[in-house]
């Protein structure tokens, strides 16, 4: 759409070249994103087995991985949308969520032998604690680190965010040490729950998607329907005007950090149960991926962040599984990040505002 509009020509093209341009402008990104799965689907169907099971399993893994990135990405996008700050500490807050979850398992005595009822109850309590702890930390960071710098040059809060990122990382390192830490596979995550002709959906997939989707729906409903949500949107559009209209901007910004923290805590717990392996540095990579997802979807746009998370999750898993088939034996999963960022660059080139579009003051 954007690429087409740059030309300044009407969409109803009069020449073949213009028609192709218009078509690519409108559908180019969809073609780009669908190209990989469609290519592999055709490839697999042409094989003697004529089976889409392999592709199906990769897509399932991609969606469930993407659900975790989506939860973290929403935290980035909310904060950027309202105060235009890249909150570098958000990935590390997500790590703290994993660590709190791990600690709670010990505190509540959750083990592989815990009964179903006890386990479900324990996990619900753990989820609430993880969300509340991360929300409290995020609000505190905003109050202590970012609020005093509200009118400072943009670099000041940015570098403060980097500082908080390092502080949280080191808290994690002091907490569980520098090594990766195994988490008991409480939900027996790889147990197949659904089998669709060979495509299996495991407990870990249901956990990731089953928690992410409702949480995001509740949050988007809150933002679009509630009075406080409207205040958040008003503050995002123009804080000064919002203040003049009687909105308490500081409280609204704190609320944004609170929501971001709640989601980071949930994401951290899901990650711990999904990977069964946590460490103090996990937030760096997760933060980078989630921020990429937020930019890909359109920074400031919640739906865009969720979409970006899912797309990156699928690209990662597809690349891990199939890159050698496309680029040859010398290319393995170590090239996955190159593939992810190549997609990001292509999307940015064609649609600088992201897939769904920015919702920031700059974007208007």
């Amino acid at each position, binding site marked *: 759409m954007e690429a087409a509009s740059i030309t300044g020509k009407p969409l109803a093209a009069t020449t073949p070249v213009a028609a192709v341009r218009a078509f690519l402008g409108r559908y180019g990104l969809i073609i780009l994103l669908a190209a990989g799965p469609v290519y592999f689907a055709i490839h697999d169907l042409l094989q003697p087995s004529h089976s889409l099971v392999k592709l199906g399993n990769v897509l399932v893994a991609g969606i469930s991985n993407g659900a*975790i990135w989506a939860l973290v990405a929403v935290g980035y996008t909310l904060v950027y949308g309202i105060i235009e700050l890249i909150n570098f500490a958000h990935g590390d807050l997500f790590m703290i969520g994993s660590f709190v979850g791990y600690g709670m398992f010990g505190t509540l005595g959750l083990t592989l032998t815990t009964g179903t009822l006890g386990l479900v109850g324990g996990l619900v309590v753990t989820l609430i604690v993880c969300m509340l702890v991360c929300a409290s930390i995020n609000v505190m960071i905003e109050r202590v680190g970012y609020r005093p710098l509200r009118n400072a040059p943009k670099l000041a809060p940015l570098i403060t965010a980097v500082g908080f990122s390092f502080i949280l990382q080191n808290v994690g390192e002091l907490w569980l040490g*520098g090594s990766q830490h195994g988490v008991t596979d409480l939900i027996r995550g790889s147990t197949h729950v659904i089998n669709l002709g060979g495509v299996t959906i495991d407990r870990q997939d249901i956990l990731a998607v089953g928690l992410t989707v409702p949480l995001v729906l509740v949050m988007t409903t809150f933002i679009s329907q509630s009075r406080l949500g409207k205040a958040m949107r008003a503050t995002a559009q123009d804080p000064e005007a919002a203040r003049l209209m009687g909105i308490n901007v500081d409280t609204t910004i704190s609320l944004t950090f609170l929501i971001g923290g709640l989601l980071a805590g949930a994401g951290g717990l899901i990650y711990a149960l999904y990977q069964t392996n946590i460490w103090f540095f996990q937030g760096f990579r997760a933060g980078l991926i989630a921020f990429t997802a937020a930019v890909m979807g359109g920074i400031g746009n919640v739906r865009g962040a969720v979409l970006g998370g899912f797309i990156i999750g699928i690209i990662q898993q597809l690349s891990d599984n199939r890159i050698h088939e496309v680029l040859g034996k010398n290319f393995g999963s170590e090239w*996955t990040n190159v593939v992810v960022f190549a997609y990001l660059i292509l999307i940015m080139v064609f649609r600088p505002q992201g897939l769904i579009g920015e919702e920031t003051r700059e974007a208007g």
Partner: protein
Amino acid sequence: MTAVSIASLAVGVSACGGGGGGGGPTAKITGTSLTVYSSLPEQGASGDQAKAIENGVKLAVKDRGGKVGKYTVTYKPLDDSLASTGAADEGKGAQNARTAVQDSSAIGYVGEYNSGISKVTIPILNKAGITQISPANTYVGLTSTAPGHEPGEPDKYYPTGKRTYARVVPKDTIQAAALVTAAKQDGCSSIHVFNSKTTYSAGLARNIGLVAPKVPMKIEGNDAYDPKAANYRSLAANVKAPCVIQTGEIEQNGVQLMKDVATADKGVKLYGADGICLNASADPTKGIPTTLAPQFKCTIATLDPKTFGPTGKKFFKDFSTEYHQPHPDPYAIYGFESASLLLDSIQKAAASGTLTRQKVTDAVFSTKDRKSVLGTYSIDKNGDTTLTDYGLYKIVGKTLTFDRVIKSNPSLVGSG
């Protein structure tokens, strides 16, 4: 990360000055104080091994009463890891080597634990003529042109043209043969190999690729993985072989890869190399989950403590008494032997009356049929030990337990 990289670069640049500061290879050591340094990753997943090696070095110095002839020996352990990453760092390694170079009393250097860090420290110490003995490096390219080395290796690590680096663990041509042999003995018809892209891990995977056809063993895949990825679910889905050899280190997300491979194929046999053959791997809170433990085996150069001779048995007894550890980490004995070889070489070098760093290096490289805690071995012209046996370990009751010896087959191990 950026800040860390810049700091590493700064250290690396400062290290480019090379030797000097503390006397050259042939300068006579004045005074009666000598310093032995070690450089090991004290933080992160390899911290337990670093501690075990350091304790081994301390025990070797203590056994001699802190004296070698008229010289008093001081041991200074240095950390080559970063708290921010929990892993060894090239910049910190270079900084440690520079610390030794600038100390005129420095006579020897025990390290590094990671082959990739030795790539950086060997040239710095080489210019100053300081003898370096590694208790853990297995990458072939550090010492030889054996299969698996990269172009320019190993000469590029020795700017003076003279060798100053030796190691007491067998190199990866031997470990690769041991891993493939172990898999073959266990009935594996084919293998899938994974590496973490580090110098050590990628080099060992290359060696496995070269040795497998000679066994013979079919390789279904030989993939590098991204150590910072969250998981390897779809990568693991590609595994077709009944056995997987993983050369990645524990601190390079090696356990996550093992878990994902085992999830994709519940019956797969898992083999790890010495980068993951650690006490931490047997601890389910840090390593292989209890449910996967029966599928996991790994190689390390340490053999069964029961098979060691009287000196080896004495070491384990003394170590257990000194540090109250009934099951010392397998690397403890290599720390002890690295320091013992160094101290004995100092004694040999000092016997002529004048002690120089060069004489210590010469003494190390003239080691022949040394009766040590590890058994009888020599150091060849490249600095490699002539020891060749590897131990295969398994996890029993959350403890890394010796399974069997994998004897080296000369027809599988290339020369160089």
